[in-house]
């Protein structure tokens, strides 16, 4: 019944708004950009945590949203936020269409203490992502690599098309780095010629095949749209994984963000 809490729960600080500077913008896919922000009072985060972004208009109107941190805590002084541009989005459209290197933006964080993984928590690690749900999981993979962790890890990553795969090149490189990390893609809307991985929505059979090498003692982190997260989290329980070993983070479809 009891949910085991990560050990870092005692790290309680007052979270002040900080004026941060954009030092790099990278187009990841057609609709996704990564913003690298210099944080004046940077503190190490845990992989999986997020920052809040606040925008202020001349009349004082403010809008806030939460975005997962993509970088690992080993990358000091800055954080990377990888953000999908949502057509109806009030904040994401501003960030995509207006924000450039040298601009400033108010942030506070890091926030969140449950959907986090630290190398010391061990594994085996199962990460399941849908679309931009990859972002907090990428922070975990980057942390795993930077800390030299050899914890067996598998990422099952569902994207619409090949072109929608965020961090594709870096994931290929992680897959081949010999540290016991494997990336398994699935594409739900079409696939390129010669594609030899999954090409359907994640289902129970796919999950069973992906988790088999990890065994029932795995720790799972699942992030993506609600339907994917519901299906995967419940599927893992059906496959015999204890519910308290499955941590979830969900987003959308909210129509707005």
């Amino acid at each position, binding site marked *: 019944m009891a949910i085991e809490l990560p050990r870092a729960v005692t790290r309680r600080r007052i979270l002040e708004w900080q004026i941060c500077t954009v030092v790099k913008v990278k187009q990841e896919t057609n609709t996704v950009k990564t913003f690298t922000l210099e944080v004046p009072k940077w503190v190490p985060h845990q992989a999986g945590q997020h920052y809040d972004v606040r*925008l202020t208009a001349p009349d004082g109107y403010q809008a806030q949203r939460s975005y997962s941190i993509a970088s690992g805590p080993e990358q000091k002084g800055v954080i990377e936020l990888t953000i999908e541009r949502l057509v109806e989005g*009030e904040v994401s459209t501003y960030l995509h269409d207006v924000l450039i290197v040298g601009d400033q933006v108010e942030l506070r964080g890091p926030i969140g203490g449950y959907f986090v993984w630290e190398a010391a928590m061990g594994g085996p690690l199962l990460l399941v992502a849908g679309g931009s749900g990859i972002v907090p999981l990428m922070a975990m993979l980057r942390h795993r690599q930077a800390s030299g962790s050899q914890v067996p890890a598998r990422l099952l990553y569902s994207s619409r098309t090949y072109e929608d795969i965020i961090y594709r090149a870096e994931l290929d490189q992680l897959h081949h780095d010999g540290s016991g990390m494997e990336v398994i893609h699935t594409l739900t809307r079409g696939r390129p010629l010669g594609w030899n991985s999954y090409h359907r929505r994640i289902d129970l059979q796919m999950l069973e095949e992906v988790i088999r090498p990890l065994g029932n003692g795995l720790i799972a982190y699942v992030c993506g749209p609600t339907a994917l997260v519901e299906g995967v989290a419940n599927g893992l329980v059906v496959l015999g994984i204890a519910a308290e070993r499955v941590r979830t983070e969900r987003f959308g479809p909210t129509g707005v963000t």
Partner: protein
Amino acid sequence: MSTIFQSRGFTGKGRQAGPAGRVPPGQYVTSDFPVLSAGPTPHIPLERWTFEINGLVKAPRRWSWAEFMQLPARQYTVDIHCVTKWSKLDTSWEGVSLDTLLQVVEVEPRAHVVVAFCDGGYTTNMPLDEVMGDKAFVAYKYEAAPLPPEHGGPARLVVPKLYFWKSAKWVRGLVLAEKDEPGFWESLGYNNHGDPWKEERYHGD
């Protein structure tokens, strides 16, 4: 909090602030109902479901689902505010007021805090006086239909005056206590109180 910072080129065009006075600071209005939870959705058969109140009460009580359905229920139309920034206006629920439940168990005068506990191990804590006076209820219908599991069904707590993480999904009971102890999110960096109108999102707010 006042600020002199302005975001270059941000006008707030297409702002989703909602009607004046209905949406707390930093929130936007959404028309659908996002799902957030820390783990898999529990699925408890109704014949095994119970709701119990214990702790600092004179007459601890446990209701079966059938007994709970016999309790006087009413309709509620309330605005809800999630700490992840979305607010949803005029949500309609049916459920049992906490006043009704607490009356049955006879709360002891030294009880000041309520802790809700849930399937899946989730807990959340609230001051007793903020859930009494018809300010909180255990809901089992949402928009006239049984509450779906991903939204906390078969039954969830609803405490509209506090951020929505206090409205515990899959609620199975309440413990009355004298001393305040942080619940799940309250131990993980979120505010112990969680008043959206004071923007009490995180520890220290």
